[in-house]
């Protein structure tokens, strides 16, 4: 794979549940170093899109290319670090420590019939440090707050040493103060650790402030580009209907 080749390429991807068309002719790509925010209304196909990229759903038509390989031939799924939507609702009664959760990030990379090596343990430790949860390593996941648990799942994704991080509504159930630190953390991962980020949210405010590129999704692609160029009134109407006031922030001045 050449250096320039995008990590993810979707070409004319459509998906329907029965007769219900959820995604229609979607084409876009994600390149190394991008911080792409995907927004759209509930039911607009965001989670379906995530599941297609993760290989949990298969597109009805169209092709998905991951790291230069057709999705059927792509085996190194651990290169995509996934932080799921339901972090806040994770089974709190499951007897599992923070360390045990984060270690699951390495399992697919290590492979069957092999044990955790010293190197694996170091990578897990580093992920715990990076996410700022090293002090909770022996705490049960159910005893943490929503924001802390969120970081555990990020650390889990980081432990697989991903090339791209996909986050699906990651701040649901996380309090406002913790959300702010969380977004700063994501930005630093993208800026300082050159991690490619794909961030999915219904919160237009957040996406327009945090992401470098934005993709608006309401069954088909409504916009794609820099947030300041893309999020105009016309686009918002297509996403959320006429009753939405202009809530895009024309005055934002993020880096």
């Amino acid at each position, binding site marked *: 794979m050449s250096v320039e080749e995008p990590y993810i390429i979707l070409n004319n991807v459509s998906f329907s549940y029965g007769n219900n068309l959820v995604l229609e002719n979607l084409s876009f790509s994600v390149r190394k170093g991008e911080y792409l925010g995907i927004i759209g209304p509930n039911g607009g196909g965001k989670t379906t899109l995530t599941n297609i990229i993760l*290989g*949990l759903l298969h597109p009805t038509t169209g092709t998905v290319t991951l790291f230069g390989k057709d999705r059927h031939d792509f085996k*190194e799924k651990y290169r995509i670090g996934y932080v799921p939507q339901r972090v806040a609702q994770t089974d709190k009664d*499951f*007897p*599992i420590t923070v360390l045990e959760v984060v270690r*699951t*990030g390495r*399992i697919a990379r290590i492979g069957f019939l092999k044990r955790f090596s010293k190197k694996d343990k170091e990578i897990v430790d580093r992920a715990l440090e990076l996410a700022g949860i090293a002090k909770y390593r*022996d705490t049960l996941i159910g005893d943490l707050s929503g924001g802390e648990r969120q970081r555990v799942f990020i650390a889990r994704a980081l432990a697989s040493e991903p090339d791209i991080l996909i986050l699906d509504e990651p701040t649901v159930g996380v309090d406002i103060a913790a959300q702010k630190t969380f977004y700063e953390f994501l930005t630093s991962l993208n800026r300082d650790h050159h991690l490619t980020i794909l961030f999915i949210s219904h919160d237009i405010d957040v996406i327009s402030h945090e992401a470098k590129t934005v993709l608006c999704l309401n069954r088909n692609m409504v916009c794609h580009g820099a947030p300041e160029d893309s999020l105009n009134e016309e686009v918002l109407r297509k996403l959320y209907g006429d009753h939405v006031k202009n809530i895009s922030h024309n005055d934002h001045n993020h880096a």
Partner: protein
Amino acid sequence: MLDIFQYDFMVRAFEAGVAIGIVAPIIGMFLVVRRYSLLADTLAHVSFAGVAIGIFLSINPILSAIVLSVVAAFGIESLRNSGRIFGESVLALFLSGSLAVAVIILSLAKGFNANLFSYLFGSISTVSLSDLWVTLGLAVVVFLGVIIFYKELFFASFDPELAEASGLPVKRLNIMIVVLAAIAIALSIRIVGVLLIGALMVIPVVSAMQYGKGFRTTLMLSVFFSLLSVILGLFASYYFNLASGGAIVVIALIFFIASLLIVKK
């Protein structure tokens, strides 16, 4: 040496009991955390139908129990995956259905006798040498199966979606757990009995979970509670002439109540 170990049948009961005491809670742990405890009872009833077939055909009932419960395990998983029936209803279907089959076969075989009672509630005096070898051999298979695939089985139990997204064959791992459960349960019915094996798989695990530890520690604690229950239960069964399954499960219950009282939440 205690006089209890002068009897070969008691030595065999202890050997088989220890094997079951280790394997049952290990499988039970994976079922409990998946909210799938009822599978143990379902497979136990299927095993009972297997025992009935064994009695009817005059073959070793443990072998026929193992074969039938493994077949049922595949059936349960594929029906669940088909999405045509609720997972819970699939279990109810197999549980009552296999009991019905067992009753019919037993009445054809005129097999309602004391021997049957021992399969229902467990008996220590009936573990034959061939039972012992089958039990030990397959207990080792189940144990090694879990040890070898521990990290994958653990991940698939904790978060199947994440496990699948990272490339693990979650469906196959699920089938593996269910098949291992089927084997472990069929093995255990000699000592613990059809009606009580579910308890030995679940009670030590929920006792261990009271202590608020991680997965691995909880797993080891549950094996500890289970082994202690089996050993003390077998002693009680011998000295007070009790059905072994009942004695083992009552002791496991005592550990559970003690755990509830010791650990205040």
